[in-house]
């Protein structure tokens, strides 16, 4: 009976109840967002940028972004360097700062000279065994200078060749339509000297359907410091047939670009061989595609811990940096989601409880009469607690429901199996409801203590 009385009281003070429900709904919304949405992205998020890079996340050798794990171990010396154009990578088009301005790079105190070829292959092999990784490829590039003659005379454009796995591009990056329409490499290009230019880079003009002569530097070996020596004065002159230009423009008209010509692995290997590049001199990183984009951030966090000699960066991060022209942040924010979630729930519960405690003052007569009629302290406590917990329950469910459309979109677009989707929605929802009920019960002592202060005698005396 007192349980229903509590519910009726909640209905009777709808204004204050709505306040409590709203605060708990906000807490549940924050919790659900942290538990689900912040873990990843819908399947098509930043797809054009991912197409350009051929990856959902990149492992770049060395330390260029600081994380909490780097602070825990004092194994690095941080040095201001400018990335060399001898080792181009596709992040140039997203954040040119490291190449044009400079960056802080963490170098191991142990003086190990960068990431070795064996280490690349080891990490590649491990990544391919990772359950959350769909595919992983070694990223390779070779720089070139392209002489261009205009009315103003001779000038050079800088660019780089990138080896692409055509089968992977068709299967994972949906380049099949571009291949069919002749705007991308096709399997027949494995043996030919043809390429596809990336459109949109202001510093490099590549004429579609032309045959530019590229001056590819010859690799003269490696210094003790680990740097590869490239000879641009005596280059290999390679003629490539540019079959088309690839555009990477997303639905918001953000254009992603690099000074790059895509070639097949076969073409790349042939040019590298003729220019004297061993494989190790062409590696710039490892690209990986994940099975489920809605868990991308969790995968990145895991790989950061597993491979501290690499900088793991998500393509959405790069795409966002390119869009705002602000550069990739140099530090990875400390993950305090759990603390935030706990604090938000506690705040909501305290707000709701304080609100109800004040309300108890106006219910003094009701409580006094109930006590006079024989209600025990436990009955009164039940009545108050049922009101607080019903508010918490409604608020938690409302907050969880509000965020469901976004969660469902993320799961459906990533084609997550029904069972897994149910678990990824059900578990956080259950946790949100449990936390809200627990915090409401914990802070419910405030209105309960207030209600139990009123005695029948006080009420009858009119105090």
């Amino acid at each position, binding site marked *: 009976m007192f349980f229903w009385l509590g519910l009726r009281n909640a209905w009777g003070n709808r204004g204050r109840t709505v306040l409590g429900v709203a605060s708990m709904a906000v807490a549940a919304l924050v919790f659900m967002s942290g538990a689900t949405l912040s873990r990843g992205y819908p399947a098509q998020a930043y797809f054009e940028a991912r197409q350009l890079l051929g990856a959902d996340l990149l492992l770049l050798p060395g330390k260029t972004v600081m994380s909490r794990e780097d602070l825990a171990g004092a194994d690095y010396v941080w*040095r*201001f360097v400018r990335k060399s154009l001898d080792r181009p990578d596709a992040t140039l088009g997203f954040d040119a700062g490291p*190449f044009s301005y400079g960056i802080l790079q963490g170098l191991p105190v142990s003086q190990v000279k960068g990431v070795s070829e064996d280490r690349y292959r080891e990490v590649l092999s491990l990544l391919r065994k990772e359950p959350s990784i769909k595919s992983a490829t070694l990223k390779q590039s070779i720089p070139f200078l392209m002489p261009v003659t205009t009315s103003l005379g001779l000038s050079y454009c800088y660019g780089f060749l990138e080896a692409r796995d055509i089968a992977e591009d068709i299967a994972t990056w949906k380049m099949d339509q571009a291949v069919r329409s002749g705007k991308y490499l096709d399997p027949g290009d494995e043996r030919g000297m043809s390429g596809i230019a990336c459109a949109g880079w202001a510093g490099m003009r590549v004429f579609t359907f032309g045959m530019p002569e590229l001056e590819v530097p010859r690799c003269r070996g490696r210094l003790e410091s680990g740097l590869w020596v490239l000879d641009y004065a005596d280059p290999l002159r390679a003629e490539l047939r540019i079959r088309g230009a690839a555009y990477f423009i997303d639905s918001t008209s953000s254009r992603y670009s690099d000074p790059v010509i895509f070639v097949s692995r076969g073409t790349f290997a042939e040019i590298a061989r003729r220019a004297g590049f061993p494989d190790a001199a062409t590696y710039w990183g490892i690209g990986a595609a994940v099975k489920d984009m809605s868990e991308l951030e969790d995968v990145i966090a895991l790989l950061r811990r597993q491979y501290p000699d690499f900088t793991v960066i998500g393509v959405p991060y790069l795409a966002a940096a390119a869009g705002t022209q602000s550069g990739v942040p140099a*530090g990875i924010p400390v993950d305090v989601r759990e603390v935030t979630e706990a604090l938000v729930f506690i705040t909501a519960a305290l707000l709701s409880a304080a609100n109800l405690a004040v309300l108890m*003052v106006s219910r003094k007569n009701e409580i006094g009469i109930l006590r006079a009629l024989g209600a025990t302290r436990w009955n009164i406590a039940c009545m108050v607690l049922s009101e607080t917990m019903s508010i918490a329950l409604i608020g938690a469910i409302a907050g969880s429901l509000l965020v469901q459309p976004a969660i469902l979109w993320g799961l459906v677009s990533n084609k997550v199996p029904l069972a897994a989707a149910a678990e990824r929605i059900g578990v956080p929802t259950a946790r949100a409801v449990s936390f809200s009920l627990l915090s409401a019960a914990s802070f419910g002592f405030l209105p309960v203590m*207030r209600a139990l202060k009123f005695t029948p005698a006080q009420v009858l005396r009119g105090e």
Partner: protein
Amino acid sequence: MAMADMLEVAGRGIRHRAGTHIVVSLLVAFTTAGYLIISSYVGDTSRSVTGSVEPLNFPYLKATVLFAYWSNPPYLPGEEFPPPREYKPVFNDAELDRIRGLGGVLDLSVALEQEAFSSFGHRQLVSIEVGAPMWDAINLVEGRLPVGPDEVLVPSDLVALGAAPGRLLTLKVPKPVAPRTFRYDRVLVETPDPEPVKRLTIAGVYRPFSSMVSGFLGYLPVRRVDAYAELDDPSKVTMAWPVPNTIFLHLSDPPTAGSVWSDWIGLYRDLPETRVPVIPPPKICWTPDLPQLMMYRAFSDMADSLFPSTVNAFVLAGLGVFSCLFLSFLDRRRELGILKSVGIDNSHTAWVIATEAVVAGATGTFLGIVAAVILAGRFLIGVSGDPIAIPAGVIAAGIAASTAVLGAATYIPRAMAKQGTALELLHGRPIPIFRHRR
């Protein structure tokens, strides 16, 4: 009401509601201690990390500078900026003297920086103006300084690859590779080099004193632009090649590079109705403390997520304090109403509430500080490997924050105690927080 009487009433209130005030004190103590420990831990980590940064050893402020003031009119899509009162060319003796005369600047060197590709790979080619003071800082180990535009210095690490004085070096200078942009400006229009292939003779070898100047060093003849007289469009002004794009300011006190940079930009205050920040000729700069600044920014990026949690914690404490004190106020409405009915004025009545809050808050703050000092000093180890010390500045900030939170949390009970009339307090009538008095 005398102060002593007020304090006695407040003291009695504290004794009678000791439980409530203990809860308030504990809330404040917990929040203050948490804030102090986290802030000090972050500070300790920041110092450790900054200590692992290699210094630049470069007592110069280096800036990318266009030759003409505002040769790239800034604009944002849909907006246009009004022109300044006066256009000024930078590579002009009068203007360079103004820059050289800035406080903290020992001397000024003009240069042209380009990307260069040679038989030794990619390096920067920095062509320094003949007679520039920067040449005096170059540590020549072999050969001599270049005396003409067809000569170059190479860094000593290339000697192992066969670089030596007298050898010919072919440099290829492409168009700007990564178009450089300044935040409120278009892509910087850089004058193309009419000689993209340079055949230079190695005049000497130098040992770089900093990674900031560690590429090829070339010879730059002096180029100046006359003052613009009644000029409407500086983009029509041309400058004979080679056109400089870099200025090095040798600093007397490298840590003050930031203020030198501010003073330099401040030279161009004559821009009417211009959007802040002003778009000056110096576009991009590198300062001697750049590695430390970048490390600080990286660390801030990491620690930024802690700020909302800290705010949440203070909000939570404020809510808790408000709940306790407001309920305490509700409990003693009749007492306050009796005080008012015997003639105690509104301010003194409010001070009774305030005094209780101050005592509870001060006790809690003190306990929090003591707890934080003990916990941090005896039980916690920082990233540096040392116990965490809580700086006086952090303690002061913690006291200020808890005071602000207490003040905000106790505003409503104090206001109601002040505004409420005797009848409203005695009979439980609604009390406004603000009352319009006629």
